[in-house]
């Protein structure tokens, strides 16, 4: 149920993600637009920067802790935190407990934050109980599961339901849809050749599906895939789920 005008407004603190903030601010704007359309109040704490994942995944836990500790403090009082990223969400929900395992006080904060920190599509489908957000987009769309969303958070059905409910969309499932696109954080620059070769497989699957647009919930995968598409001049466009859901006729 969407809360009606009389119901008290749900309040959401936006975790924009560092990548989204700097490279894809339009994604954040679309998140705000869709949430507001559904009657949700969105706040933004400008003290936020990054969740700490780049350092954590590269093995620099001390540095990761310093950055992550700020997230715990910044969102302590939020009813819900919503991030347009499966990767940052899984960092908070799956890996913060490990990162702060030796710090009981912070661990308590982690436990408090985990249940309220949600990825955009799961917030829409599981908390707001909305699938049709009133979007319209008459195109052939394929969906790319980011690994963190799929295998850390097990969010597979939610984005698909949202996409299928968009007016005019022809939804296409990618062959071998569970395969990684090759981004992998610092893996992308430590093993660039493998990273790009994996993207090429993903883009071949997208081309074979006949899709015009490749939609995902992670700007990191999309930045990587779009980078290969642009370099090779492929006839495919990438789009964040929030951008798709913000489209109206």
């Amino acid at each position: 149920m969407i809360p009606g005008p009389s119901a008290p407004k749900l309040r959401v603190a936006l975790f924009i993600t560092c990548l989204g903030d700097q490279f894809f601010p339009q994604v954040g704007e679309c998140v705000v637009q869709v949430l507001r359309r559904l009657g949700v109040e969105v706040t933004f704490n400008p003290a936020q920067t990054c969740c700490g994942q780049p350092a954590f995944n590269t093995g620099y836990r001390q540095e990761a802790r310093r950055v992550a500790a700020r997230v715990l403090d910044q969102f302590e009082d939020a009813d819900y935190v919503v991030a347009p990223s499966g990767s940052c969400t899984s960092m908070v929900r799956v890996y913060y407990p490990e990162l702060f395992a030796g710090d009981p006080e912070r661990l308590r904060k982690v436990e408090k934050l985990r249940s309220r920190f949600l990825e955009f599509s799961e917030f829409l489908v599981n908390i707001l109980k909305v699938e049709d957000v009133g979007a319209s987009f008459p195109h052939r769309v394929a969906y790319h599961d980011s690994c963190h969303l799929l295998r850390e958070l097990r969010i597979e059905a939610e984005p698909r339901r949202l996409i299928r409910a968009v007016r005019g969309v022809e939804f296409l499932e990618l062959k071998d849809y569970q395969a990684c696109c090759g981004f992998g954080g610092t893996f992308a620059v430590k093993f660039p050749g493998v990273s790009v070769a994996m993207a090429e497989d993903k883009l071949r699957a997208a081309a074979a599906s006949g899709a015009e647009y490749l939609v995902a919930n992670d700007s990191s995968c999309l930045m990587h895939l779009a980078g290969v598409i642009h370099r090779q001049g492929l006839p495919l466009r990438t789009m964040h789920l929030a951008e798709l859901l913000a489209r109206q006729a």
Partner: protein
Amino acid sequence: MSEARIGTGDIHARVQSALKNAHLQEAYRSSTLRLYTHRLQAVSELPGFEHLRDRAQALKRQVMEHLDYYLAQFADNVARRGGHVHWAASGEEACGIVREIATRAGAREIVKAKTMLSEEIGLNRALEAANIRPFETDLGEFIVQLSGEGPAHIVAPAMHLTRHDVSALFVKHIHSEPTDVPEQLTAIARCALREKFARAGLGLSGANFAVAETGTVVLVENEGNIRFSTTAPRVHVALVGIEKIIPRLADLAVFLRLLGRSGTGQKLTVYTSLLTGPRRPGEDGPDQMHVVLVDNGRIETLASEKMREMLYCIRCGGCLNTCPVFRKIGGHAYGWVYSGPIGALVTPQFLGLDKARELPFASSLCAACRDVCPVKIDIPDLLLHLRAQAQELTKAPRPPGSPIGERTAMRLWAWAMERPWVYTLGSRLARLGQRLFARQGWIQKVPLFPLSRWTEGRDLPALAPKSFRERWKEISKQ
């Protein structure tokens, strides 16, 4: 500890050469896809597969927590059934024990069943140095022994070769007629191996499982060469990693249902041999059975509460087949006998992070391996742990073209991320700087690490003219 066959040169060089080799790419693509698909099919046909994985994981955990108890029980039971038990702390010791047994038995030739542990400890070279000739009898191992390579895959050692490659090897080494027909190739190998089985004074195997309750060595295979190797020669030696123990015979029902399905998509492999002691009066089989229990780094791993999980592995190869990185770079790029996701754990853990520092980073952490692992090893989590250890214990090599080292860069990064004003200032400076490189919103080349590596094969979107936080001032008013 054995350093057998650690790959020469830099992992990045090996990766680059694999990526350029279209022939190799196709060999790995088709083989891994076939095994992956067969696994999916087999798993879907067995209700309760998830439950079996949980059960197997619990059993392995139980074994690792009480390994001293189960090992003693296993050793006692082997001895009780007339077998000889040997303990080897290192690979060298294990090689020495096998050499000694062979010498005493007067065996100049040995037929070998496929065993990854013998690859790990460099047994073949140790035997050859003592003028004992080891003959690999598993078809894949036979092929890579001819080619002089190590195994390319835990269960499919010759995965990197096509039938044409195999034919060429046979023509060169055993002077057969060229043929591309798999059945004919198999027949050629079979013919070459027959006489070896008949002549060998010793048969050497590994062990898939070692049953503590009964002292039984369990071996699974598809070709019959293991059964032949362990029954025809007068002496059988089983090389057993100490992590191979399972408590009871009944537990085999759990592991056998998982192993075949996870590895090759088979409900059961063609042969399953349960060997308990040497032949008894009036029976066929070897006069002597020796079990060599090998540590070679396993106890040290057991001592690490985190890395202990790695020892649950039953070497099905499932994680390799599902790994998108393995599919691209193949087994030899990993540099040692174990490859793929499990190899990226085992190699640095057994040989030392200083020898394989980059391996834990050779993963996109996509976690597909964790989802197929029959004993539910959390491979990505262990890779992350090794990454943290690598940064703590060793210094990252400075990336080429980088003005500062990785650790300094990460410290600077964290310092900036802790201070929104530095973060904002930094992003503004980057916006100014990118004017030199950006064309219509895209950057094709940046001569500064790590962006230089990014733009090797893909373009980089330019930073947005205004960040979200800058735009928020207007958005919040709407």
